């Protein structure tokens, strides 16, 4: 309440005022293409404005324009980008150098690539202060650096300032970048997907940090993200963009409780919900294609409430309530937003009861070889995966979840034979002992297929989709006629809901989601019995994600394929898997049927992960304290130094036992009853929007 009143009072002196702003790009054959269309928004002092939309909607273009940064082949046909009294759209480079970092600062998407690799943290931070004349004397600079690091929750200042970026974790690097942005007390902070690519627990810490900074410093923030749920944790108001136009602006709670625009409704409905609910029939259809957009409403082609007028005329933004604007001709006629949820796990269907396709027993993997000298000194190889056992049955999807560095991909690589294991066994089809890749018979190579995380890198850009799919056929299904091969290719494409017209296209002509589906089709065309999916959804928009999930669930229902699904996204995992394996530092923490994983008792680590998932209507609970966790005693539980439910010294001195209840296994010193009592994350339905 208070916040809104403040924001209203500030209307006269908004920190950011974007007015009727349009942006064109010159794209070869098409001439000038409109990327942003008459965008208007404002951010008051101390306000966090969320900017959300799917990839390609122009949200990043808008954000970077606020820093006066745009590609050489662009022009501003209309509008103003006011920061205070300055129009940053009209400044030259010399003037921009005085605005950027000083008055408008950026927190970029990927901290690991945003810091100069060859410069120490100290010089990268100090140069901002020096170049902007904020602090010039060595002692003043040093004092300011320490102050900044404390502000972003980094206490080990001397070591960190002396470090190179690669010596810090992703979360620490993002804190450094935030400190860098705050260093000259800017008026406006532009955040471009600041937590995408970070672990969910780290994301929680960064969002809590930003919320704290908002309270303490009160600067205006533009928070750009594709993750609507994340905005529920931090934004005061949200602007929804579609194809370069603002379609809806609303206070965050209103947006979740009563979204006005059909696109917003579809966006909310498409997000895989960790509580397994979705709003019936509201998922987004189709994908954003700029070429399909005519003179009318940009969303018309995908809108289920489309009328002739929508394609003819661009809708004006109208205020449908206080501070709630919607750009839709028929906002009055839309059915009331239906909060009745549909259970998504119904779509998942029953777990397959087929035979065991893959059996991993006591698997241990280590990367580095110990050198001779080390061996004399009694050093052994540090395992990255320890004693992992799991089974995948035919018609079953088993998920491996955990933060980065938990060993998920390493296990998958060992199963495919790309890396060797030091102990344990990987058995396929009940009897075949899987060794390294080159020792495997062709038949086994065909039956185990791998889909990589990033289709941009796993598909050869110079080969058509047809050629990419023909390769596994000519390798594994020798002696087929050209016609039969073509048939197989088309069939595989249909399975991922792409038609034959895709055969002659190049990866560059496809959207990210289409590319990922081609990558899946390439896995399927070999007719595998085991499909390994390594984070295949993480780079995709929610509407595309939903589509790929459908593809995977359809495959599963056919009952022929066993899938090992690797993901860090607990919501997606819940939507599709029959069993879940929770990994931490290469060790299984918890394992069991999906429903048992998402209700008490939880392993403390599973609980921490669940709590870190942002949800509308739930303020992210107390998470891990910021900063480096204390040192880990190798004799004890691998999670002991981060555990919020630590039992006592026993956690440091002894490896916890595996406790079993039915099909659920939890590795913890606490007994299951205690774990149930400690749990605060409840599996109930939650009313969206209720703060």
């Amino acid at each position, binding site marked *: 309440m208070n916040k809104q009143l403040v924001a209203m009072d500030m209307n006269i002196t908004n920190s950011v005022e974007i007015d009727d702003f349009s942006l064109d790009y010159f794209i070869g054959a098409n001439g000038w293409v409109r990327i942003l269309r008459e965008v208007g928004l404002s951010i008051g002092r101390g306000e966090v404005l969320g900017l959300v939309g799917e990839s390609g909607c122009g949200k990043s273009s808008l954000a970077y324009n606020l820093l006066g940064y745009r590609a050489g082949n662009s022009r501003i046909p209309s509008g103003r980008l006011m920061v205070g009294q300055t129009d940053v759209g009209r400044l030259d*480079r010399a003037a921009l150098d005085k605005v950027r970092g000083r008055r408008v600062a*950026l927190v970029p998407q990927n901290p690991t690539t945003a810091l100069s690799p060859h410069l120490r943290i100290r010089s990268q931070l100090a140069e901002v202060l020096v*170049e902007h004349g904020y602090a010039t004397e060595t002692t003043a600079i040093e004092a300011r650096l320490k102050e900044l690091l404390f502000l972003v929750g980094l206490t080990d200042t001397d070591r960190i300032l002396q470090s190179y970026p690669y010596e810090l974790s992703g979360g620490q690097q993002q804190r450094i970048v935030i400190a860098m942005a705050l260093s000259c007390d800017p008026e406006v902070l532009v955040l471009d997907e600041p937590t995408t690519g970070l672990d969910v627990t780290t994301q929680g810490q960064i969002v809590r940090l930003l919320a704290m900074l908002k309270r303490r410093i009160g600067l205006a923030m533009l928070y750009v993200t594709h993750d609507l749920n994340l905005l529920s944790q931090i934004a005061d108001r949200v602007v929804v963009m579609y194809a370069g136009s603002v379609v809806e602006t609303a206070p965050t709670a209103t947006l979740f409780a009563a979204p006005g625009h059909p696109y917003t409704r579809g966006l909310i409905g498409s997000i895989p919900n960790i509580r397994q609910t979705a709003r019936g029939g509201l998922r987004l259809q189709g994908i954003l294609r700029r070429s399909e957009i005519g003179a009318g409403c940009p969303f018309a082609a995908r809108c289920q409430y489309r009328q002739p007028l929508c394609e003819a005329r661009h809708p004006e933004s109208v205020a449908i309530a206080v501070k709630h604007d919607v750009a839709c001709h028929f906002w009055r006629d839309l059915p009331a937003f239906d909060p009745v949820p549909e259970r998504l796990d119904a779509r998942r269907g029953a777990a397959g009861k087929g035979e065991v396709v893959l059996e991993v027993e006591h698997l241990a993997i280590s990367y580095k070889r110990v050198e001779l000298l080390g061996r004399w000194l009694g050093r052994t190889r540090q395992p990255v995966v320890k004693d992992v056992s799991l089974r995948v049955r035919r018609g079953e999807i088993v998920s491996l979840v955990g933060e980065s560095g938990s060993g998920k991909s390493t296990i998958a690589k060992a199963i495919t034979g790309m890396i060797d294991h030091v102990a344990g066994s990987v058995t396929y089809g009940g009897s075949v002992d899987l060794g390294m890749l080159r020792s495997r018979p062709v038949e086994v190579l065909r039956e185990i297929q791998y889909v990589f995380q990033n289709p941009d890198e796993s598909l050869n850009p110079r080969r058509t989709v047809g050629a990419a799919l023909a390769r596994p056929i000519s390798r594994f299904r020798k002696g087929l006629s050209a016609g039969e091969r073509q048939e197989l290719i088309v069939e595989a494409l249909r399975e991922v809901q792409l038609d034959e017209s895709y055969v002659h296209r190049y990866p560059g002509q496809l959207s990210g989601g289409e590319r990922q589906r081609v990558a899946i089709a390439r896995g399927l065309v070999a007719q595998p019995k085991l499909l390994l999916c390594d984070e295949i959804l993480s780079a995709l928009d929610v509407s595309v994600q939903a589509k790929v999930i459908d593809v995977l669930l359809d495959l599963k229902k056919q009952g022929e394929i066993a899938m090992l699904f690797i993901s860090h996204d607990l919501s997606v995992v819940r939507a599709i898997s029959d069993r879940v394996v929770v990994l931490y530092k290469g060790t299984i923490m918890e394992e069991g049927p999906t429903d048992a994983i998402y209700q008490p008792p939880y392993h403390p680590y599973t609980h921490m992960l669940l709590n870190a998932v942002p949800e509308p209507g739930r303020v992210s609970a107390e998470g891990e304290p910021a900063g480096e966790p204390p040192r880990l005693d190798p004799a004890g539980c691998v999670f002991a130094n981060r555990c919020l439910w630590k039992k006592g010294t026993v956690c440091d001195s002894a490896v916890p036992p595996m406790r079993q209840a039915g099909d659920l296994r939890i590795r913890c010193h606490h007994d299951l009853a205690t774990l149930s009592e400690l749990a605060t994350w409840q599996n109930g339905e939650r009313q969206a929007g209720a703060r």
Partner: protein
Amino acid sequence: MVGKLILTRILYAVLTLLAVSVVVFAAVEILPGDITTRILGRSATPEAVAVLRKQLGYDQPAVMRYANWLGGVLQGDLGTSLSSQRSVNEVIGPRLANTAILALCAFVLSVPLSLLPAAAQALKPGSLLDTIASAINFVLLAIPDYLLASIMLILFVVVIPVLPSTSLVTDASGFWDWVRALILPSVVLAISISIYAIRLLRDGLIDVLSRDYVRMAELKGMPLRVVLWRHAFPNAIGPTLNITALNISYLIGGVIIVERVFSFPGFGSVMVGALQAGDAPLIEATVLIAALIYITANTLADIGSILTNPKLRSAQ
């Protein structure tokens, strides 16, 4: 870790040098023509030949002679020139110094000559400036050194007679004589080094300039000079550093031709003279020195790139 890497590099360099010495010695050994007949002439008596052979040590097996020679080299004694009967050290020493001065001048000139065009081109790839600069670059790339040298000679000696036609310097030459003598050869050498470096640096810089951290530096308000030289350049220099090493080796070859065109009394002319005279000790010494320079330059470049990589530098 770094120390170990560097030591390994140095060890490799020494081994390579040793291998080169074997090859050089063997190559000179199988050169056509007997050394003694070449010195004494065809009409020499067999006795005289035998005496001379003994005197030069040619009565011993090749392996022994190699060992003796290598022993001498390791102690800094490169032998005696057959044609002038002076110590090889004496013959090569001052000439090597002359060439070192020339190479240094060329190298110093080549730094701005490669950095500035590369930076200007990389900042606006595809622009008119970039296109013209690239075209000039390709033309220069296609012109051999001696032709470039000859063109320069014609241009600055014949058409606009401001410089001397030969770059003959002696002990008696004064400072300005040196300057006038060095201008043309060092400019020609500098140009032929720079054209390779420009291309590599331009492409390296374009790649680095598109990186997130360079954009970040720009978006935190760093002026162009800081973005370019502090954030982008150090990351683009890596591959160029290795090329610079190759360039230094290239200088050795280029120097021979350029010294010849401008009649500069340097190391290159000694080398050519030794080959023409079939002066075995002198050939061996010059080739070995050339190899030493080549290998040292490459090893230094390797060590340089080890040291400029912070991941290697500070790993434990």
